[in-house]
């Protein structure tokens, strides 16, 4: 009954390619994928879940920090640095880029700018979250059907 699995695998390959083409994910995500094996078949889901939890916490902290009368830019920068780090480690390119821009606003001690950056980072976060949930769901469907997750070939 390869027809079903084959179709799912093709869907996955296409969907994943589109995420790379749109710059939402980068090569680092492939690193994560390649680390998953029989001894830890849920590795990617676990790491991504950690990323989701940690990001929501950081986004909340950022909103709180920017809402203060006297904004502590060092604190804001520290939170953005964390988010930049974890998004970079899972290959969430656009979130990472948004964090880089955010750090510039912190350096300039620009509250307005920071608030705009927070909006942007939040938007990129929910975008990648949505896409990753779809991607991981496809992967789990493939595994449940007894198939294996196709390896990503070189992105041209």
């Amino acid at each position: 009954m390869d027809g079903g699995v084959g179709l799912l695998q093709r869907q996955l390959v296409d969907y994943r390619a589109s995420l790379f083409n749109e710059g939402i994910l980068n090569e680092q995500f492939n690193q994560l994928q390649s680390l998953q094996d029989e001894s830890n078949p849920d590795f990617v889901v676990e790491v991504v879940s950690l990323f989701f939890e940690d990001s929501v916490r950081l986004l909340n902290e950022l909103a709180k920090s920017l809402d203060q009368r006297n904004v502590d830019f060092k604190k804001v920068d520290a939170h953005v640095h964390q988010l930049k780090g974890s998004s970079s480690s899972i290959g969430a390119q656009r979130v990472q880029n948004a964090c880089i821009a955010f750090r510039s606003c912190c350096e300039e001690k620009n509250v307005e700018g920071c608030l705009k950056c927070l909006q942007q980072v939040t938007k990129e976060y929910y975008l990648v979250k949505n896409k990753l949930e779809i991607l991981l769901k496809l992967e789990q469907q493939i595994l449940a059907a007894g198939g294996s997750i196709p390896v990503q070939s070189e992105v041209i």
Partner: protein
Amino acid sequence: MNVGAACSSGGTNGIEQDPHVLAVDDNVVDRKLVEKLFKNSSCRVTTAENGMRALEYLGLGGDRQSCSSCQASDICPSHGLKVNLVLTDYCMPGMTGYELLKKIKESSHMKEVPVVIMSSENISARINKCLEEGAQMFIQKPLKLSDVKKLRCQVMQRRS
């Protein structure tokens, strides 16, 4: 282990034991990634979320420096199991990776252990400072499997 460190093993059944790595990082996602990278490379891994925990684990924390068992052997039964490599993030709140490096290099029984610093930022002044203080290597984040395999090779070579 009750020092805020999590230990896991992914070793082979070789005659020589797999290297034991202590990975220090305040970022929860990075700790998870580093742990898997080393497990997949046949290394035992212990993670710590900050410099203080790392020092405690190594038997260098607070008043443990007065422990005679620690001074007598590499494997202190009370604290500080033998570690073949310390991999630490540079930017951490409280104690930075650089400060942790210094403390390890200042100690009598841990100073020979290679310490590798990781950072997302490629600042040459920072890199030089760490290398001058005795860091084995400086690696740029995000960490990849090829980085970890290279590290493992280096650690195994040092042992022989």
